[in-house]
């Protein structure tokens, strides 16, 4: 076979790329078979990761560490959990995503619709059974607790309870996310429910509370995606969100004492987040490499560095963050929930929220 000039050029360029890739190689394997998987992944040339927005849950830290270790770029988007499932469904004839990340009940929903593929990553067996699909069609990677994050430049006195948020001095102050399209929105609807004596069989106490908050005129905005930048910019007085957003604003974005985190007195919930390999993923080996990486103790530690609590039990928190979390006695007020059941009542909850809070019918 005769090689034309441009073919030689292509080969040469390819060789240079291959050598560069080798240059970022690692010395020690994180788990048996890592190197072999990496070899296969490199031929696939990329990874599409749905809903892993970089400012959310320290995904940026994971991207950086992954690309540094393997020399593989990650394409991501930031849709919201509900939108992710809808998108996977729309694309099911021609899947674009390799992995999809969501609030756990949405993962269960995606698995039920046959949109995810079974894969058991490193550390899978260490996860509590409640937060992993038996075949690995989804598994939890980290969790977050629903808290108030307060901007003290806009709020003189920090509220300590759900009840207090109804007070007149919080007029046009509270911001939260839409329960119909986002995991956090649904999680906080469950949190208000548990705080008001309801449960998954009867979510009306929590939704009635949110309706009361709305009627009191205290809701400033119901957002569609995480308004982290808006919070840091000083647009949000009281933000009902996950704890890591608060820690991130306080310690990483540098707002320091201007930010207060509160676990409300009546209680709240802790929500697991899950990830899946997508059925028919275009880059399956890269997907496995990525899922393994975030589930290793190293990957779980990267979450922890962003104040996102890992799902794998026994992962040691890095020293620089361990002392900065709210006291364990505060976290005792956060309950765990039957998340599989939460998925089954979600549609009804979303409908009820729309009709009671926004008056949609």
């Amino acid at each position: 076979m005769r090689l034309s000039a441009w073919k030689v050029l292509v080969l040469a360029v390819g060789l240079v790329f291959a050598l560069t890739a080798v240059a970022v190689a690692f010395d020690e394997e994180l788990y048996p078979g890592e190197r072999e998987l990496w070899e296969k992944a490199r031929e696939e040339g990329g990874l599409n990761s749905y809903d892993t927005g970089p400012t959310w849950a320290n995904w940026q830290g994971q991207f950086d560490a992954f690309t540094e270790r393997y020399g593989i770029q990650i394409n991501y988007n930031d849709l919201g959990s509900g939108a992710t499932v809808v998108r996977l469904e729309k694309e099911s004839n021609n899947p674009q995503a390799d992995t999809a990340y969501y609030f756990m009940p949405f993962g269960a929903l995606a698995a039920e619709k046959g949109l995810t593929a079974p894969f058991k990553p490193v550390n899978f067996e260490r996860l509590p059974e409640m937060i992993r699909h038996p075949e690995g069609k989804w598994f939890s990677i980290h969790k977050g607790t629903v808290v108030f994050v307060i901007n003290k430049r806009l709020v003189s006195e920090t509220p300590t309870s759900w009840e207090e948020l109804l007070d007149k001095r919080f007029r046009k102050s509270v911001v939260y996310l839409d329960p119909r399209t986002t995991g956090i929105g649904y999680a906080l609807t469950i949190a208000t429910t548990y705080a008001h004596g309801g449960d998954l069989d009867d979510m009306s106490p929590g939704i009635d509370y949110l309706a009361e908050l709305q009627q009191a005129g205290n809701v400033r905005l119901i957002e569609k995606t995480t308004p982290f930048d808006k919070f840091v910019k000083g647009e949000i007085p009281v933000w009902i969100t996950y704890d890591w957003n608060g820690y991130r604003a306080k310690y990483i974005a540098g707002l320091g004492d201007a930010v207060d985190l509160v676990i409300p007195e009546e209680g709240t919930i802790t929500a697991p987040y899950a990830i899946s390999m997508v059925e028919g993923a275009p880059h399956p080996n890269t997907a496995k490499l990525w899922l393994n990486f975030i589930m290793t103790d190293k990957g779980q530690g990267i979450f922890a560095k962003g104040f996102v609590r890992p799902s794998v039990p026994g992962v040691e928190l890095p020293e620089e963050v361990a002392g900065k979390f709210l006291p364990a006695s505060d976290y005792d007020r956060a309950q765990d929930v039957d998340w599989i059941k939460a998925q089954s009542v979600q549609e009804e909850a979303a409908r009820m929220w729309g009709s009671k809070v926004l008056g949609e019918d």
Partner: protein
Amino acid sequence: MERRGLTYLLLLPLGALILLFLVWPLALVLWESLWVDGRLSLGNYSLLIFRNLYRESLATSLILSLSTAFLGTLLGVPVSYAIHKTRGGVRSFSLALTAVPLTFSGLIVGFSFIILLGTSGFFTLLMQRFFGINPLEFSEFLFTWRGLVVAYLYFLIPRMILTMVAAWSNADWSQVEAASSLGARPATVFFKVLLPMLAPSVLAGSSLLFAVSMGAFGTAFALTGTGVKILPLVIYTHVSEVAADINAADALAIILTTVTTGVILVYEQIFVARQPVRG
């Protein structure tokens, strides 16, 4: 005959483009909106009458678009006249400046309004400093449909200006001069000569503003949450929530398209057809 054939040949790429990226997708959306549970039905459209949410969002969208079209015309026409009267460097500079807002994406416009008028926005802090106004109360309007009117005007007024600057230049000023020299009072000149001459352009401009603000999404997305019910945002929510209702969203999209193109078509029927070709 041969030349005409060549013209049609040259139009082919455009035709293909329109077919592929406008007609085909629209047809799909229309089909999905009409096909309910395996049969043709107007169910999705009847929801528009029966569901509060849809009625409200259509109404809010219409009010928003009418307000922006009206205010944009009111503010844009005088400015366009001023620019028309300038010459040379000043003219090109002001025209260039007018075009700048058109180059920004809606998201950027939305965020820039947050920086100016948001809770810790520049003007908000000035108002607090000098007039003791509560920033939370002051900036609250920005996240309602009234705030959207203000934000939309930012990219709508330039559209009005550009449309009108051309109209002023093409206007037949000799008629105005003739009327004046024949002794007509300024008011008469304005109402009898100038207004009829310019009315089609003003209406063309304002119907364009109406259509643009009916469909604008990025700015509304960046500024307001799901609390503000306007058609583009309701469509967005419908295609992204768990209990996604794609067919209803399709129906809403068809309504939105019909309203916006309808306004422009009606305008063209009434005015453009009657317009003498000027030359």
